[in-house]
């Protein structure tokens, strides 16, 4: 599974949103449940799904699909 598909699944699972609504352009404002608490839940889910440990600064800025994909590409 490529990074985008995996990320799509994590976002859908965390926010209970249909996977097809999540595109490579999706950002935090596009999904109602992606609020500050939802964001932390997503970060914790990503840590597990991609085997990462995120630091506070990364958590604060990974607020869109493009930003997360870019981070994963260099991680």
């Amino acid at each position, binding site marked *: 599974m490529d990074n985008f598909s995996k990320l799509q699944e*994590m976002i859908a*699972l*965390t926010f209970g949103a249909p996977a097809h609504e999540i595109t490579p352009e999706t950002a935090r404002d596009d999904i109602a449940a992606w609020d*500050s*608490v939802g964001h*932390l*839940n997503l970060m*914790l*889910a990503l840590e*597990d*799904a991609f085997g990462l440990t*995120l*630091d*506070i600064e990364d*958590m*604060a800025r990974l607020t869109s699909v493009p930003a997360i994909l870019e981070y994963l590409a260099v991680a």
Partner: protein
Amino acid sequence: MKSSPDRIADALQTTSRVEALDALSPRRPTLALPEINRLAAHLRELPDERHPLKIAILRTYTTELLAPHWSCESLLQGFELTLYQAPYGALLQELQPGAGLLEFTPEVTYLFLRWEDLHPRLAGPVTALPDRAAVQAEALEYLTNLLAAFREKLPGLLVLTLLPRMTPPELGMFDAMAEDSETIFFSDLKRGIARRLRDGLPSVYFNDLDEVAADLGRAQCFDARLWHTARFPFSVAGAQAVVARLMSYPVLLKCPRVKCLVLDADNTLWGGIIGEDGMEGIRLGPDYPGSAYLAFQRRLLALQGRGLLLALCSKNNQADVLEVLRAHPHQLLREEHFAATRVNWEPKPVNLQAIAQELNIGLDALLFVDDSDFECEVVRRQCPGVMVVQAPGTPLELPECLDGIPQLEVLQLTDEDRRRATLYAGRRKDQQLKATAVSLDDYLASLEMVMHVGLDDHRQAARIAQLTQKTNQFNLTTRRYTEADIIRCMDDPNWLVAHFRLADIFGDHGLVGVALIRLEGETAEVDTLLMSCRIIGRGAETAFLAHLLGHLAQRGIRSVRGYYYPTAKNVMVNSFWPQHGFTAIDEAAYELELGAVPEARFIRVETEEAGIR
């Protein structure tokens, strides 16, 4: 045993929530957040029946990140959860008229507080406090007043938690040596809290989350990133453990209580098969693997100390098993520890029925422990309602196989609970005597029973509430009450809360019968009448009713109304009212004009001395 990922994968393939629970037992593996969400989604699709549950949360730190855990854990325990989170930091504000909490009417309310909410100085450092005792007293006073305010206005259970300290003691290793030890400072406070709750705040419980930190270790329990950026203290593992622990309260409030552990013998109480390996060959003693079985037996004795009964159910020759119980040098559980014993070649479901009957408890009050796949499956199929725990095949995992089961927790421990095991041993003697007595009348007369009736006695409120929650068979209306409800009735002049204790030549059976009566003018309504199954068949109910009717007549009551609401369990009392001279007025209600009252036989009834309120 299977690895954690395999068990989690299994749980996602299950067809019922009980199967999912089994797949994750014993000792729940830590699930990652995506797994928790997947498991919750899976459980939500299953056709299990779910009971509605309303939980409220009051907090002085962020708790929203517990939400996925609440969803998953409540589904695992069979609940359809509605969660109310009060605004961050709102405590007494939530008791103002029109506040969300009061309108929500929660069944269980959790308080997530920090120590420094009780007293600002508790934020630390606490080691050098010059006035430790005064700070402790002020903190206790503040907390007691806060909880009393909630208790007064809020229905249901209240559960207090305090955020464990996330750092090691201020004095480091020396804390253990210090006169002003921080660890002891806080454990003194915890003891003070427990005492205040026990003594004056019914249905308010303190849950010590320090146990979670001890189980996981501070490094695993907390997540500093989330604490410093979002005021949420716990790691995913910590959050999961906290919620699993706190979910015990709804389970204890709303699900059948386990009252008896039914234990297999071979490969459960000891390693090997007594019929084949013999006394010398079975594994039981100080060396592995015998040490694991010994450790399990010790855990079982501890569970008995919580008021749970133990029963033995084994396919064996009785003599072989008895020899181990009586003569094996390392066997801890002896004959007298078992309230009932079935060692024979009958199918286990038949024996479980017989044990439930002998102990006068429902089948759903049994928890069955057996190492065999076959026996566990047969019991699951033929005895729905019986909880089944398969004893792990690996001896090392056996001692912990009953950990973390909410149904084995207790919310209070009365003297009756502590004495229960001995009482049942006495009852066995009693049944032997019954077999030799000539007639039932002779037998009952030989018991020399004495009944003490008490009214509106606050000291007994906990036990009375417990009986309303646990009694299923001899219970005319099966209404469940909390301790707080009972105290309210006791204080209400239009209600009468009566109880009785029964003693006989075998000992004191403790508080075993309850009646709640509502008075209105010259009429009395029996809201609740119940009796513990321990003393069924001795005419105690008739003696109790006769005494109550006499008391009501003295208070100017002319007519008494009683009700019978049938349930799956209380058939035995379906003709209680007609048998005692009441006339049916509709399907559920019966009435009696007070005149001659039925007479108590074989029981001397005494009123407990006045001035007990």
